[in-house]
């Protein structure tokens, strides 16, 4: 089991708030691991990263599978989906992730349900202010 403390972030309306995040490593094909802090979002269908992070991984972003996502506010984000390798704690897995088409899209980098929530039981522990990943499948 790997647990990550929630992150303190400032907001103009509610002051400091705590958000569930994780430190993961990502790589594409034979590239090197790149370490990034991401939100853990059980409401997201798939993991999403900004365009420039995909470039850093060595992706040719527009070679992926095109997908358009809608959010709560009705805005849309155009992306391309690629299979990347993720490391969470000691666990390594293949996962689909969407990378923004537009370099100017400032979406939060996050891990969503596809590929990840199938493999880990993810516990949002409000009392302890941490999120724990428990490997529940060998897929």
């Amino acid at each position, binding site marked *: 089991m790997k647990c990550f403390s929630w*992150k*303190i972030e400032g907001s*103009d*309306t509610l002051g400091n708030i705590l958000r569930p995040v994780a*430190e993961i490593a990502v790589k594409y094909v034979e590239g090197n691991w790149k370490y990034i802090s991401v939100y853990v*979002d059980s409401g997201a*269908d798939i993991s999403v990263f900004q365009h420039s*992070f995909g470039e*850093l991984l060595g992706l040719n972003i527009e070679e992926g599978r095109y997908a358009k996502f809608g959010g709560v506010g009705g805005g849309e984000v155009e992306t391309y989906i690629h299979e990347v390798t993720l490391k969470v704690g000691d666990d390594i897995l293949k996962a689909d992730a969407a990378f923004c088409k537009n370099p100017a899209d400032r979406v939060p980098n996050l891990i969503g349900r596809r590929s990840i929530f199938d493999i880990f039981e993810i516990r949002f522990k409000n009392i302890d202010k941490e999120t724990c990943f428990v490997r529940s499948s060998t897929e």
Partner: protein
Amino acid sequence: MVLQTKTLEERINEDFLWLSKNTPKLQESFQERWVAVVDKKVVGVGDDAKQAYNKAKETCPDKEPLLDFIPKKELLVLIL
């Protein structure tokens, strides 16, 4: 005397905890920018991930940085 060297994972974990506690301070200077952290210090800043990463590697060529995108001070509702 025994010198203890941190593993990469241990150091990244420490940097993650540091980021988790210090983001409100970073939001004062780096909203909507990428930062790269090594040994609990911001060693690279950029408008995109590559800029921040490359600056960090110039400063600390032997260490992998932990990257983060510093959010605006607004509420988030994340459902994609």
